[in-house]
């Protein structure tokens, strides 16, 4: 068998392969992030961490439908102080962890960074795009000016690379991205879940306790591909693709659209083996199509 390195460099991050665990999927604890990495992910993004501990919404917080997964977990997280301690405990192990953070505005984002920044991790992903938590979600991600001030606040407090995670629930995504990039974001992550709801017909109730949630999984991939394609046309900074990837074809499709690396979330439904399966598929494809590096594939869908 021909060997291929899957190594990628994304805004200074060196990853063994282009796959990352997406934020909020199993990665509430450093143990879970580690398991994803040991299962073959090039990196792992933590659950979004806020200033204070949050229990999130009452169950049901997730519902699997024939249209994909709809969730309103409600940004449950142990808070920046506790998570900082968890990170401190794995110091020296050089785990390729990206920490996702959220907050109610620039000041709160800044304080979260101050509490976490001393630890060993690769980068920040700013969750500007949770579609179902009032005050910390889309209010920030749909408004270019607020997004800019959040990115500036984070930028001034860390030397680590900063990725802004975008929402496709707005037609202004490219404007928000521009604000983030102009304010110092090193890269963009697209996309978060799509605002959604399901109603259960026997009980006639919205299924989720929070009623509104976010749609993820296969259903949203064509939306993600379109948004990544638009971002690649508009910006030079690297893009982390996210949304509905569960096979190597999906991952390659996202690279071709312009993503430099690819997050996998809902597909964890099929177990941690998804990372090595996808990597194997990408390797086979590269051999067959004679690509030497993953980077060569990035954005190739724009050639035509």
């Amino acid at each position, binding site marked *: 068998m021909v060997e291929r390195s899957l190594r990628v460099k994304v805004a200074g991050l060196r990853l063994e392969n282009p796959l990352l665990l997406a934020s*909020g*999927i*199993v*990665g*509430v*604890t450093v*143990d*879970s992030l*580690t*398991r994803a990495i040991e299962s073959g992910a090039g990196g792992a993004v933590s*659950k979004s961490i806020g200033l204070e*501990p*949050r*229990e*999130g919404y*009452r*169950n*049901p*917080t*997730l519902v*699997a439908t024939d249209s994909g*997964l709809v*969730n309103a*977990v409600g940004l*449950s*997280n*142990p*808070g920046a102080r*506790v*998570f900082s301690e968890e990170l401190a405990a794995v110091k020296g192990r050089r785990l390729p962890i990206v920490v996702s953070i959220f907050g109610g505005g620039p000041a709160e984002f800044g304080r979260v960074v101050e509490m976490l920044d001393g630890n060993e991790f690769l980068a920040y992903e700013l969750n500007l795009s949770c579609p179902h938590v009032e005050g910390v979600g889309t209010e920030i991600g749909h408004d270019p000016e607020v997004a800019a001030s959040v990115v500036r606040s984070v930028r001034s407090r860390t030397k680590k690379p900063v990725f802004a995670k975008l929402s496709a629930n707005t037609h202004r995504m490219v404007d928000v991205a521009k604000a983030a990039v102009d304010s110092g974001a090193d890269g963009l992550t697209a996309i978060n879940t799509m605002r959604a709801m399901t109603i*259960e017909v*026997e*009980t006639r*109730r919205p299924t989720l*306790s929070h009623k509104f949630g976010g749609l993820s999984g296969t259903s949203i991939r064509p939306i993600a591909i379109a948004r990544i394609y638009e971002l690649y046309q508009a910006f030079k900074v690297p893009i982390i693709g996210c949304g509905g990837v569960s096979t190597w074809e999906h991952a390659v499709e996202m690279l071709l659209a312009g993503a430099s690396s690819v997050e996998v979330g*809902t597909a*964890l*439904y099929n*177990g941690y083996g998804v990372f090595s399966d996808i990597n194997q598929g990408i390797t086979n494809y590269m051999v067959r199509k004679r690509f030497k590096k993953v980077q060569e594939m990035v954005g190739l869908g724009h050639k035509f």
Partner: protein
Amino acid sequence: MVKNVRETRDISTVFFVDPECSTARPGQFVMVWEPGFDEFPMSLSNYDAKGVSSVTVKPWGPGSGALVGARRGEVIGIRGPYGRPFTVEKCGALLVGGGTGLAPLLPLAKALVKAGAHVTVVLGGRSKSDILFEKQFRRVVKRKNLFITTDDGSHGRPGYPTDLAEELVRERNVTRVYTCGPEVMMRKAYDISDRAGIEYEASLERSMKCGIGICGSCTVGRNLLCRDGAVLDAKALKASLEEFGLLQRDASGRYIKV
């Protein structure tokens, strides 16, 4: 919801029909949705080929409280069965359970007997009126293989079920301990099995949001309890001894005492 049977002072068994549960195996759980209240994991205490199934529940929050009060005909949501079941094979089995932890042990006992195992059961409870499924277990195992303990000595042997378990491990040809109940009890049973060098499987409990390996709220070390468990064996637990029986994560992901 088809039937609600009061088992003890505070524990009820709620029967329902769900065709998917006809494929359940002992130790698997379902996510029970009590509309308007909550959704929570519950071990299956009965299931048959037609999907007539049950969970056995002790009220501890708004959801389980509502479930215990549920009436015939009411609609509840069931997802599952989920999770890794207990190992069912011919062996020298000792089942140690307390409280509603006996729920998954009942179908397990039936399956083990069917598989030709030698099955001994210890039922624990605080007091006589807390002992669950005594009648049901009597139908499955011989009188000499069924033991009862109560903390207050009001029925069976006084003391903890694990005290008796320790004796039984010494006296009988026990090759695997199966346990479910309060985590402190299960940890004790783990230590007993570990010392005796025999196999061990326990069905643990953690806060669960999704039940399908997505949300990460149910971790025990690197294991996701909903996928890799709820039944974990000694090997899986050995890596989490600083946690097992001592700490668990709350809904925010912080450690709290079990």
